[in-house]
């Protein structure tokens, strides 16, 4: 009787233990999910603002006196014409009461300086415009854009605000005339870095990331697969191969900045490759990705049952044929999954690129593997460290772009694994 009670008592205790254990697990997951939600929602809340930019409607008069300064109506004249003055005059015609020089300069800061170039191109394309007055939607400068997107900023004290009370009054006048609108921010998707937030875009660094990852892929994939196949299928088991194996596993855990230092020492200082170029970045990241892919390759080769190898060899295939005809195709889904995960790791990496000069201000979208460029995470870092307020939302939007590429790549990896992986 006594024993039965003891057992009953201990059973209760063990069951309580189990339910506690479950609760701990649930708590762990709940905390992780909460933090993830907080991070993601704060990024999306901030970043979604960057996908819109503010435009101001103006009557632009292409004054021939300003454009054709030499009176000979040549293209040269248009190229060097003072379009800033044209914009200033257009703004002035909306606010005819302003005549103070200083105030006029403040007013002309409402419009992004990129519009000078755009107007110049417009006139170059259609010279008939000179002398005409047309209504255009011009891109607002970042300052106005930020105020327009965050109405609560108007309420803070004047000295703490980005724009003065006077400028705010002008903005409200433009608003009441219904001359302001928000539109899709195309610049963000077609331009590279800029010092003006409204002209900065993610495209340059996206192209840079693409070039860099391409180099990483074509270097690391064949090398890693060859190394993995050799170690797993062909190499004799001895102390030397054991040593290599230990080293590869160690390499996978080396902090990425070390690879950057290696890249600086070998690729830049010894081989004299250009600084800031995607080719060097790709090579550094390839070194970093190699162990990941080698380990994935070996794991998926190991997962192929020995019976398949034995059958192939039994039918007279050579080792080479066994590997290329049977083992490798069967393990390919696993290898590809590992490769994609290694690639997405490389996509999010910025520390090693610091050493080889890819953390830089680059305005031109790179056109080749040798052009200077940055990559996505570096662009995010650079925007984060810039003083101008408009970059806050660009930073968050950059994170969104990076995250969506990571999700896409990892999604492809999961898809390949689900779809093609064989279970024995």
């Amino acid at each position, binding site marked *: 009787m006594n024993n039965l009670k003891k057992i009953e008592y201990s059973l209760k205790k063990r069951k309580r233990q189990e339910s506690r254990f479950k609760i701990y697990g649930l708590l762990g997951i709940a905390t992780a999910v909460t933090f993830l939600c907080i991070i993601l929602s704060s990024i999306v809340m901030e970043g979604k603002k960057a996908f819109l930019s503010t435009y101001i409607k103006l009557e632009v008069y292409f004054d021939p006196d300003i454009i054709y300064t030499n009176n000979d109506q040549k293209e040269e004249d248009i190229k060097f014409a003072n379009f800033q003055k044209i914009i200033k005059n257009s703004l002035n015609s909306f606010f005819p009461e302003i005549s103070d020089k200083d105030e006029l300069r403040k007013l002309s800061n409402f419009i992004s300086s990129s519009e000078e170039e755009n107007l110049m191109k417009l006139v170059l394309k259609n010279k008939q415009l000179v002398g005409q007055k047309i209504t255009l939607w011009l891109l607002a400068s970042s300052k106005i854009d930020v105020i327009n997107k965050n109405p609560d900023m108007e309420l803070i004290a004047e000295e703490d605000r980005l724009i003065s009370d006077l400028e705010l009054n002008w903005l409200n006048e433009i608003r009441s005339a219904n001359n302001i609108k928000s539109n899709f921010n195309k610049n963000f998707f077609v331009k590279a870095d800029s010092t003006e937030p409204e002209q900065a875009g993610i495209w340059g660094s996206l192209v840079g990331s693409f070039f860099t990852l391409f180099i990483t892929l074509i270097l690391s994939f064949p*090398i890693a697969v060859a190394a993995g196949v050799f170690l797993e299928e062909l190499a004799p088991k001895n102390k030397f191969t054991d040593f290599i194996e230990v080293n590869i596993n160690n390499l996978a855990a080396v902090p990425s900045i070390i690879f950057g230092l290696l890249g600086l020492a070998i690729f830049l200082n010894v081989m*004299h490759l250009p*600084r*800031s170029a995607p080719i060097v970045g790709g090579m550094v990241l390839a070194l970093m990705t190699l162990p990941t892919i080698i380990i994935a390759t070996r794991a998926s080769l190991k997962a192929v049952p020995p019976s398949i190898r034995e059958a192939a060899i039994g039918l007279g295939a050579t080792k080479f044929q066994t590997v290329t005809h049977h083992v490798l195709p069967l393990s390919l889904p696993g290898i590809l999954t590992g490769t994609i995960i290694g690639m997405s790791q490389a996509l999010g990496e910025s520390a090693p690129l610091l050493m080889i*000069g890819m953390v830089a*201000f680059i*305005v031109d979208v790179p056109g080749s593997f040798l052009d*200077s460029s940055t990559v996505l995470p570096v662009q995010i870092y650079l925007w984060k460290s810039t003083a101008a307020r408009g970059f806050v939302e660009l930073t968050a939007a950059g994170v969104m772009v990076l995250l969506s590429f990571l999700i896409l790549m990892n999604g492809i990896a999961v898809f390949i694994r689900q779809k093609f992986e064989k279970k024995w």
Partner: protein
Amino acid sequence: MKKSSLAIVALAFAFSTESIARDQIKIVGSSTVYPFATVVAERFGKTSGFKTPVIESTGSGGGLKLFCKGLGTEHPDITNASRRIKSKEVKKCSKNGVTDITEIKVGFDGIAMANAKSGPMLELSLKDIYLALAKDVPADPEGNTVKPNPYKMWNEVNPALPAAPIVVIGPPPTSGTRDAFNELAIERGCKKFPGRKALKKKDKKLYKSQCRSVREDGPYVEAGENDNLIIEKLVADPGALGVFGYSFLDQNRDKVKAAKVDGVFPEFEAISSGKYPVSRSLFFYIKNAHASVIPGIKEYVREFTSAKAIGSDGYLVSKGLIPLGESERAQFEKDGKNLAKFDGKVLNKK
């Protein structure tokens, strides 16, 4: 593995022969000059038809190190600096063949000490800054002997200051801001003690090491070459004081407020007139041998030194640069045009 590394080497060499020509200016250097140089570079790229220069923010010391590494397209053409080049660096440059450089001063910058808006209003003297941040502080009122800095609270340094722990977030030793801060704030505070001043004549080396070193026991926190990070840390910790350039103060007035140093706020007028004690000059250095090889260097220098950019109402002034006097600017514009050779001897005169 051997095969794979061979393949990498082969591929690298195949590309490296191609990479010798470069048609884009490469600039490195100070994080304080970076926001100004990027604006100039962008305008230059848009208007001149040359490629937009690539600019890296490496800190003044790091930039000069890269700059002095040698001649050739793999080395940068221009380095920005928030302090003057040191004679040690001039020597290193010439040892590597970089003998012909041009110095351009672009303007001034005040080093602000600021805390969060919600923090207390501070009025510091150079002496307070020295006593709070130096590695060794005077052990007697005259300053004849020193002891390791024992102060943990502001009111231990000066009873007029609040009873709050000393926490100062500032740039690392590679930064020009840090060099200038050591020289302009710490050393000048040090000189207020007669005993320390006397040491300068007796043993200059010891004086420099004692009067220019910042404590490493915690109250001074190094924040990396990222002034925005410092501002964010200040907002998160209202008790902390930050050290950064005027342009960052100007852009973040809604978040931080400056402390008075020797009774003066770091304001535009006070810095350009020299009234604010902790102000320094900003420079960039051009490698003259590159000017004939890399297209656009001369034009970039012309853009940067023009009145349009750094004159008293140039576009960099609205970004927070404090301009030079007009005659000084014109002189540097001329120097830039002629690529006047910088004479390292002027550094030894001091």
